[in-house]
């Protein structure tokens, strides 16, 4: 779950990391409640990156200019993301900008600091990037080593070390995937300050992070309404632009099925991984989700039951087909309890394709013959 800058900074602040004073506004008039002097920085609160280049950050020398800028900024859409609000901060006199982040490193299999003496830039394109593995249990000297490696000296070195230690504490205690400060600013008065912040909360950890419970739905801004609904019911849906609705159990198999559809000339309308062990109810919900997509002409259901029981899937299918008898379905159903499932489906007249390639070919072929959309009216 991605957080907005203003949320990330609130969390940083609670963790003892210095951030500039700030006021969040959703209307230009609210600029009046700003309690620090001009010039001000106005920053669009959006999830997407590249905000600065897209004109999402402006400076105002007085209230009048501020209001005019705020009005424009609040309507700005950056890379498809609507501006949620503006974060208003005083302008900071910058002596130096750094980059500092904590994240999990896939290759090393542990958390790492990513740091650079060049901040305010895209870290991917930066040179002189340090990546330092973080030991467990954590010790404060790790922050000092990092600050020293960044070439910092004296009081600033100690302050950045302390800030790095606090950043890791936030990362660990809040179960983050990413805690990023970019830029981390050293002011002309030798203070350190998190001028911009990004936090990604690990989705699997929200259940043990009471502070973030209920935040998810409002933060899925880069998803379609259906994708969001799927996510909230623990289904993995990615909407695509074809007309074959793909529903499988297991991420790898779903991807492979999608790849094969494409390889055999079809166009996937979605990726839907119902996950392992889905029961009748969840499978039905998944079918409904695919069915709802008006672009979908054919549903390709591919289940290879390990942890998923075929009879549970068959139960969902029976229910679904009763409700939507005209829906084009290509079904492949193998694995645990396959025999029971086959018996359950025998009466429906639904043809089962034991071979994946045949099933995919059939779905592609039907998708091409679908000259018009089938009626979606439910029977019940």
């Amino acid at each position, binding site marked *: 779950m991605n957080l907005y800058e203003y949320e990330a900074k609130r969390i940083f602040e609670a963790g003892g990391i210095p951030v500039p004073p700030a006021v969040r506004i959703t209307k230009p008039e609210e600029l009046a409640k700003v309690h620090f002097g001009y010039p001000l920085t106005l920053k669009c609160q959006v999830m997407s990156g590249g905000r600065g280049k897209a004109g999402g950050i402006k400076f105002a020398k007085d209230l009048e200019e501020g209001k005019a800028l705020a009005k424009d900024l609040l309507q700005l859409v950056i890379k498809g993301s609507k501006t949620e609000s503006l974060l208003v901060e005083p302008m900071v006199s910058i002596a130096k900008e750094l980059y500092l982040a904590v994240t999990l490193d896939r290759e090393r299999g542990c958390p790492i600091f990513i740091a650079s003496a060049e901040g305010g830039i895209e870290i991917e394109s930066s040179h002189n990037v340090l990546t330092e593995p973080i030991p467990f249990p954590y010790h404060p000297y790790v922050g000092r080593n990092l600050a020293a490696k960044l070439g910092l000296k004296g009081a600033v070195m100690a302050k950045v070390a302390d800030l790095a230690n606090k950043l890791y504490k936030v990362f660990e205690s809040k179960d983050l995937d990413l805690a990023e400060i970019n830029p981390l600013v050293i002011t002309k008065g030798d203070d350190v300050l998190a001028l911009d912040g990004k936090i990604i909360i*690990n989705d699997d950890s929200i259940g043990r992070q009471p502070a973030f419970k209920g935040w998810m739905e409002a933060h899925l801004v880069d998803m379609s309404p259906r994708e969001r609904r799927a996510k909230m019911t623990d289904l993995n849906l990615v909407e695509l632009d074809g007309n074959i609705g793909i529903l499988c159990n297991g991420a*790898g198999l779903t991807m492979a099925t999608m*790849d094969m559809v494409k390889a055999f000339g079809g166009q996937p309308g979605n990726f839907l991984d119902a996950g392992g062990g889905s029961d009748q109810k969840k499978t039905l919900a998944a079918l409904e989700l695919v069915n709802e997509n008006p672009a979908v002409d054919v549903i390709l259901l591919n289940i290879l039951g390990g942890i998923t029981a075929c009879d549970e899937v068959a139960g969902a299918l029976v229910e679904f087909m009763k409700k939507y008898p005209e829906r084009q379905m290509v079904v492949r159903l193998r694995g645990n309890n396959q025999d029971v499932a086959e018996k359950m489906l025998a009466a429906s007249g639904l043809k089962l394709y034991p071979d994946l390639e045949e099933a995919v070919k059939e779905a592609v072929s039907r998708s091409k013959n679908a000259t018009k959309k089938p009626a979606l009216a439910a029977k019940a």
Partner: protein
Amino acid sequence: MILVDKHTKVVVQGATGKMGAAHTKRMLDYGTNIVAGVTPGKGGEKIHNVPVFDTVMEAVKTTGATCSVIFVPPYLALDAGYEALDAGISLLVLITEGIPPQDTAKLAAAVKAKGAKLIGPNCPGIITPGQSLIGILPGSIFKSGPVGMVSKSGTLTYEIALALTESGYGQSTCVGTGGDPIKGLDYQEVLSMFEHDPATEVIVMIGEIGGNAEEEAAAFIKKNVKKPVIGYIAGQTAPPGKRMGHAGAIISGGKGTAESKLEAFKANGVRVAMTPGEVAKQVAEAIKQPAKA
């Protein structure tokens, strides 16, 4: 075969939970040497005739188990893993999905420090067909033979194993390493074991988008693996920036694409299969002898 055989004594952590109980039954039916279950507070009970202990320590002491398969809920998995490790378990098979990755990182580090092995999390487990099934794989799909399989994905592994079995090619051992970005055993370790396993003639390596483990494995293969390796990558048509089911399956910042992985395969002598069905054909070619029906 590698890692497990019919002698491997297995304890099931979370054996009395819904999932744990169901799969304990399946593993027993398959012939796996399940010697104990563990559920705190249920010591002294039995599950499918297997004795249940309160702690792994007691289970190991009483039964001599060396492997634990873990079915506990995600937020209890780290503690269960530490418990197994400190009780002397040398192979941990962690099935649980949804474990916070920082927990996994801690467990993986502890496993490494102790010289033990961790498979998973978020994985189907491991099977040496005809001998031992440890996890949630559907046993009926597999049969004994010369193909070593290693894969990030569960159901995709079944798909390919099924194709192999139906083409007459059984498996030495199949290892599902799991779909999380942070995990225990990686490709290299498993590939190395297969390379040294006399029962394995051909290796099938199944990858997916996200990360660069496949690229690293390909480089490793060029250097260290003489046996033929067939590689397959899922997510060839996945859009960037979207998480494709697995926590680790995401193309971000232009990295982790199927193209990159397939190119690494080709550049390092890994034979590429573009569909699950093609894997069986490639295996047949690699073995260069008629498939046994």
